[in-house]
């Protein structure tokens, strides 16, 4: 569930990137203050370990298909919140650069969804509370499953929220939510089982490793407060943004149930659907990303753009750029770009 650059708006990507940058700064500072120098090589090698572990598939119980781990929770259990967060963030950065999983601007979103929730929320607030200082097999199992489910639910919610706030995809908030959450419930259970298996193995073979993170109480208690404050600010910002939308979509749930019942396919809900979207669209126009309406290309040339009557202005924004002139021009430019590329390559090869 790596978000791609193509699916988010600069406002959402930028905000998430800024939040992530703050957390990385804070995490790096904390590590420097609190930890011994053993942790530096340990973090690097464990990052590579998660990377390698993600590539080994296993059979998922009861389905027969195969999957792989995410690993955020294993790291958190081994390293504690701060170090695990930095390690996960570094893994996600490399995946972005080398495997095109995610994107440069979407990196902030991905770090929040896949690293923040597991390391700073689910691990300290759920796993630690259940497994405690003196873990046993059942506590590890229950703690791992509960924490993994929680972190994946929050991560999936993050994906839905970011997608919706960006407004690039048309999927309505509630339908997307109803699609994502149950899938990630299943994924969370599997992730929890695997986390429990690995942690239990380590706990039996080398209990002192788990004690290393379990005992460093001072680090957690100081950093957690700041993190929670940071999260409260984050929630307030998101909440504030959400309230723009709240009035736009009062009947969202009702609508998605209606839709999920699915008797009348596209005809009947069309007017309602569009009225709904038009409303959301109007509100969303406050966000940068599609509020750049000053473009000279927006208006002009009414001949070729046959905007259907009765649609409001927001929908009319399918603009002249997509008209026939736009298509011809677009194709020409693309050809030109390829030609320049071909020419440059020729030049390069000769020199």
């Amino acid at each position: 569930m790596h978000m791609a650059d193509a699916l988010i708006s600069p406002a959402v990507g930028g905000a998430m990137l800024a939040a992530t940058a703050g957390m990385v700064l804070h995490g790096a500072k904390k590590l420097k203050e609190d930890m011994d120098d053993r942790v530096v090589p340990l973090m690097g090698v464990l990052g590579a370990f998660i990377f390698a572990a993600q590539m080994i598939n296993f059979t998922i119980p009861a389905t027969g298909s195969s999957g792989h781990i995410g690993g955020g929770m294993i790291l958190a259990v081994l390293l504690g919140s701060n170090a695990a967060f930095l390690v996960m963030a570094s893994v996600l950065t490399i995946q972005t650069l080398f495997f095109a999983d995610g994107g440069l601007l979407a990196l902030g979103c991905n770090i929040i969804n896949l690293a923040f929730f597991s390391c700073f929320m689910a691990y300290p607030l759920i796993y630690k509370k259940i497994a405690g200082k003196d873990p046993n097999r059942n506590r590890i199992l229950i703690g791992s499953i509960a924490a993994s489910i929680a972190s994946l639910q929050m991560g999936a919610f993050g994906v839905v929220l970011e997608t919706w706030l960006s407004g690039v995809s048309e999927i309505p908030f509630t339908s997307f939510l109803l699609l994502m959450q149950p899938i990630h419930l299943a994924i969370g259970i599997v992730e929890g089982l695997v986390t429990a298996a690995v942690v239990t193995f380590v706990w039996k073979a080398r209990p002192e490793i788990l004690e290393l993170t379990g005992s460093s109480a001072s680090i957690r208690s100081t950093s957690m407060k700041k993190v929670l404050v940071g999260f409260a600010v984050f929630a307030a910002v998101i909440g504030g943004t959400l309230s723009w939308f709240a009035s736009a979509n009062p009947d969202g749930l009702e609508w998605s149930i209606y839709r999920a019942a699915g008797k009348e396919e596209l005809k009947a809900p069309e007017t309602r659907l569009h009225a709904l979207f038009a409303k959301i669209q109007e509100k969303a126009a406050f966000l940068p990303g599609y509020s750049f309406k000053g473009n000279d290309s927006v208006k002009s040339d009414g001949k070729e753009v046959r905007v259907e009557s009765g649609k409001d202005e927001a929908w009319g924004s399918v603009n002249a750029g997509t008209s026939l002139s736009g298509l011809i021009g677009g194709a020409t430019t693309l050809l030109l770009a390829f030609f320049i590329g071909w020419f440059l390559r020729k030049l390069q090869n000769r020199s």
Partner: protein
Amino acid sequence: MSTISSSLFDVNHLDALSNQTTCIHRLDPRVKLLATVVFIVSIMSLDRYQISALMPFAIYPIFLIALGNLPFKYLLRKVLLAAPFAFLIGIWNPFLDSNVSFHIGPVGISGGWLSFASIMIRFALTVFTVLALIATTGFNAVCMALERLGVPRGFVVQLLFLYRYIFVLTEEAGRMARARSLRSFDGKGMGIRVFGSMIGNLLLRTLDRAQRIHIAMLSRGFDGEIRLAYPLKVNRRDILFLSGWTALFILLRLFNLPYLLGDMFSGLAK
């Protein structure tokens, strides 16, 4: 199993590509990184129904690929491999937004198909560019650029360490996965139990390795601080590269060049 060796091959291959010495490779990593960020932001901020205005942006990845002597087909394959998520999210648009927005002859094109096409084009442009960035710059140089641009050193060191050990541990994981699949009949032993102790073993070996590395580092005078030596220097060409591309991206973002061009053509036809 094949995926492990092939992803390792991918990282190796991109690493090898970044060791060339074309004029793009010789540019300062910071200017390449910054130009790429401006490029991505310009694309992302375009209206979601925009298709034609996206086209001229293709010149940047094409420029990098052509002058950086990168294999286009190989990059294309990587882009396609990464496409499913954007595709799955985007493909709903045509079903949810069936407003006919314009006609080509008798065929009506709905806004949903336009925005879906727009998502996929954005995806291709941004992913091509990021891959071209790493293949013309190399990971170590990107890390140095990040450090110089203000990313905390602790995180940069983490990235460098991680990158260094990916090769070692992925090879080890690959051998373990091969051993498991060779001993597995009928899919037995491929489940979570075996996976758990297998990964647990890999983890223990990893921890031992971390300890050895730490001892080795200590004996070479490591004091918790890693000092990076950078030969980075911005010269005139770098400034030209950054300012030129940034100006072009802003221009392309503000004016729909293809549309003006197409308008000129259709004006001439009349």
